[in-house]
């Protein structure tokens, strides 16, 4: 075992509840005071196929897993075949002895336990969890508390199954309890959902698509308690236009999708820019192009997010690095979208959306940006009034005696279509002035994070979900880690401060071309190289360290 940390792999067939069992393990480690990260790997199918989750607990903040694990929990033979070589020394294997053979491991007759409880096969994951608890030296009362919370349906029967497997298991190691206070664990999707509630979201719209479908499910599940309406329209084109209809009438709306769905939304992205309508778009990247690897990760849509749409218009692009940042920055995305009346793209990826992270409970403090509203005394109200800031104060219909127009064409201050060159230019300038204020606000929000060894002259440049893996590798190898959270407008001043004293830097990205490295080159920073991964899988800590040692 690595000092101060533990890694567990659980594997089985799709439909055997691998993800939920992984979450229970994450919560168990959380109870022992660990900060956790869970990586869940599954092919695009509903039943069968091979699913696995790696759950890693550590004392410090983590956002990635290692390829080596301390325990393998195998519901089937395939798990042992595929992942046996990941086992560290001393490694522990807990397996279903009715489905596999592994003489050195702890065999649990899951089939017989389920038969004794007249339970369906899906409850086999409760058995493997019970056996894991004993093998890892976790006290039963701790496990019972976590299980009771986690097994929502058939709690009593699941607990009996877990207990039977616990009795059949044997203690092989003892995961030490740390002093830390237990923290809640959330997926990035859930964290974004929480942040959207905190942002005052009124309507959430999405057409199902991995990896943001679980954000749709999370908000739909909490719609009653949060007063958010959650809708699934006929496609992404309708999704985004409906959000813009909400914005026109004064309601905060957000949408969630992946690259394919965002491609369809791009038609109306320019409408949001031209008509100056706020909306938050959660773009959960997955491996493309086209359908690509539907359930695997990538960071290949940065250039797309920054440049999508014909014509020129202001927008905001943010990329959080973990669940805590996702929660905090999505509120900022919503607030700034409304202050500046523009579309805000929230760039996540499969790793962040469906990975699980320990999250601090307290919400980020800091003043909220407010929309600029027109007073009742302004007559006539002009939706696109020219101002120094470029922000035209808002009103929403109905207002007696006023006509409120928004327009996809070039338009005058009243929203009426124009082809006049002077008005066209004045309105373009007005929209671009918003970018100045937005950039200023962003620069004040600590938009470029520095971690690892902040004074090191060699740096890693990364973004989004590579936060965790790069910070650990940077720490281990004595490197500075520079990571912009705000990507457009690009926070040039903050970036320049973060790069002070850097002699050379490597771009670490989950794409084929080094898109952030390409972006910073526009501002005069040239990477000395890149470490890229584009096989749909996230970097693992040991893998990245090894690669960096090779190239540095």
């Amino acid at each position, binding site marked *: 075992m690595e000092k101060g940390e533990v890694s567990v792999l659980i594997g089985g067939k799709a439909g055997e509840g691998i993800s939920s069992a992984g979450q229970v393990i994450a919560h168990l480690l959380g109870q022992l005071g660990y900060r956790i990260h869970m990586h869940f790997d599954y092919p695009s199918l509903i039943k069968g196929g091979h699913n696995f989750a790696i759950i890693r607990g550590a004392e410090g903040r983590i956002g990635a897993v290692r390829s080596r694990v301390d325990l393998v929990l195998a519901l089937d033979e395939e798990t042992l075949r595929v992942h046996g070589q990941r086992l560290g020394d001393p490694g522990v294997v807990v397996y279903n002895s009715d489905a596999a053979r592994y003489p050195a491991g702890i065999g649990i007759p899951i089939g017989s336990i389920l038969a004794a409880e007249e339970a369906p096969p899906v409850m086999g994951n409760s058995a493997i969890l019970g056996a894991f608890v004993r093998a890892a030296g976790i006290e039963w009362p701790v496990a019972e508390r976590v299980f009771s919370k986690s097994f929502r349906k058939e709690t009593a029967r699941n607990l009996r199954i877990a207990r039977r497997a616990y009795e059949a298991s044997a203690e092989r190691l003892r995961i030490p309890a740390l002093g830390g206070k237990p923290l809640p664990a959330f997926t990035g999707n859930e964290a974004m959902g929480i942040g959207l509630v905190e942002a005052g979201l*009124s309507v959430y719209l999405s057409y199902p698509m991995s990896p943001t479908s679980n954000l749709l499910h999370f908000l739909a599940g909490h719609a009653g308690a949060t007063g958010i309406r959650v809708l699934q329209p*006929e496609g992404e084109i*309708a999704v985004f236009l409906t959000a813009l209809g909400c914005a026109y009438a004064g309601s905060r709306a957000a949408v969630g999708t992946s690259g394919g769905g965002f491609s369809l939304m791009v038609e109306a992205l320019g409408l949001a820019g031209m008509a100056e309508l706020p909306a938050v778009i959660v773009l959960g990247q997955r491996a493309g192009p086209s359908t690509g690897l539907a359930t695997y990760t990538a960071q290949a849509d940065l250039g797309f997010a920054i440049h999508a749409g014909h014509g020129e218009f202001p927008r905001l692009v943010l990329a959080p690095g973990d669940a805590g940042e996702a929660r905090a920055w999505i509120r900022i995305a919503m607030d700034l979208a409304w202050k500046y009346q523009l579309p805000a793209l929230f760039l996540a990826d499969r790793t962040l959306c469906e990975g699980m992270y320990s999250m601090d409970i307290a919400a980020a403090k800091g003043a909220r940006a407010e929309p600029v509203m027109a007073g009742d005394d302004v007559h006539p109200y002009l939706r696109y009034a020219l101002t120094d800031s470029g922000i035209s104060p808002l009103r929403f219909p109905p207002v007696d*005696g006023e006509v409120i127009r928004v*327009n996809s064409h070039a338009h005058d201050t009243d929203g009426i279509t124009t082809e006049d060159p002077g008005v066209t230019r004045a309105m373009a300038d007005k929209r671009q002035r918003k970018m100045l204020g937005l950039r200023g606000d962003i620069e004040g929000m600590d938009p470029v994070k520095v971690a690892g060894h902040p004074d090191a002259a060699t740096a890693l440049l990364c973004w989004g979900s590579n936060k965790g893996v790069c910070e650990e590798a940077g720490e281990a190898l004595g490197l500075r880690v520079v990571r912009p959270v705000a990507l457009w407008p690009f926070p040039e001043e903050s970036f320049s401060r973060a790069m002070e004293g850097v002699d050379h830097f490597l771009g670490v990205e989950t794409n084929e071309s080094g898109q952030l490295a390409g972006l910073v080159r526009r501002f005069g920073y040239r990477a000395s190289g890149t470490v890229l991964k584009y096989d749909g899988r996230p970097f693992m800590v040991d893998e990245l360290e090894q690669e960096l040692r090779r190239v540095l």
Partner: protein
Amino acid sequence: MKGIDLISHAKNTWCPGCGNFAIQHTLKDLLAGMDGEGFPVEKVVLVAGIGQHGKLFDFLSVNGFYSLHGRTIPVATGIRLANPDLRVICVTGDGDSYAEGLDHLVFAAKRNLDITVLVHDNRVYGLTTGQFTPTSPYGFRGHSTPRGDTEHPLNPLELMLASGATFIARGYTGRREDLKRVIREAFLHRGFSFVEILQICATYNDLTDYYNERVYPWPEDDTGDRRAAAEKAAEWDYSADARIGLGVMYRRAAPIFEDGQPVPPPLTPEGREAWVSGIMNERI
């Protein structure tokens, strides 16, 4: 309010004799006088697509959202979600409702969204200077089909009936009083109301004589009878020669989409904090 107050200062750019004038003045007259019927003009939002019809957005002094080609209905859906007090009228064309945005039309009917859709069906693309549309007759010769269109038109009335629309009517710009009556009834219908308006295009498709010789009023004592409605819809297939019925074709009462999506009271900051801390505790 007088109808004239609803004409904006924007310069009108339709061709002389355009069928859109009839629709503009019909709307102006109706909107100026429906306060007492729960349709106050301040609460009206006109959502326009792209095409000659869309210019109504500029020419009328009414709240409006000038959307994209084919994309009026999703915008209307958002407006209704945000504020169900607003009365939303989509003005669209045959290109932008039956071609580019057909899926939205079908889904709005399926949901019984409480909006009115007015389709300015001149059966030709005017703004792009004379190509065939989904309702152009078989053999239509336009700039893109000089040897004649080889596709048969779709029948919007049958499409809407099959999609679950709860109010379906057809008007004609050459019959102003009848047009005004059916649009008024569409406004007052609770649910998805669809008015297919046969509109002449003075430049590219002037069917004035053709329509005048064939139109007749439908009997309206059987508008709740789906089978009778289906027969009326099938009477003219938008291509072969037949009589062309006008009026309300079908209507029925049904729960509206918005009934299932009531606007909940917004969470107070304290309520929001309580929800967040609840979900945190659940996960520890």
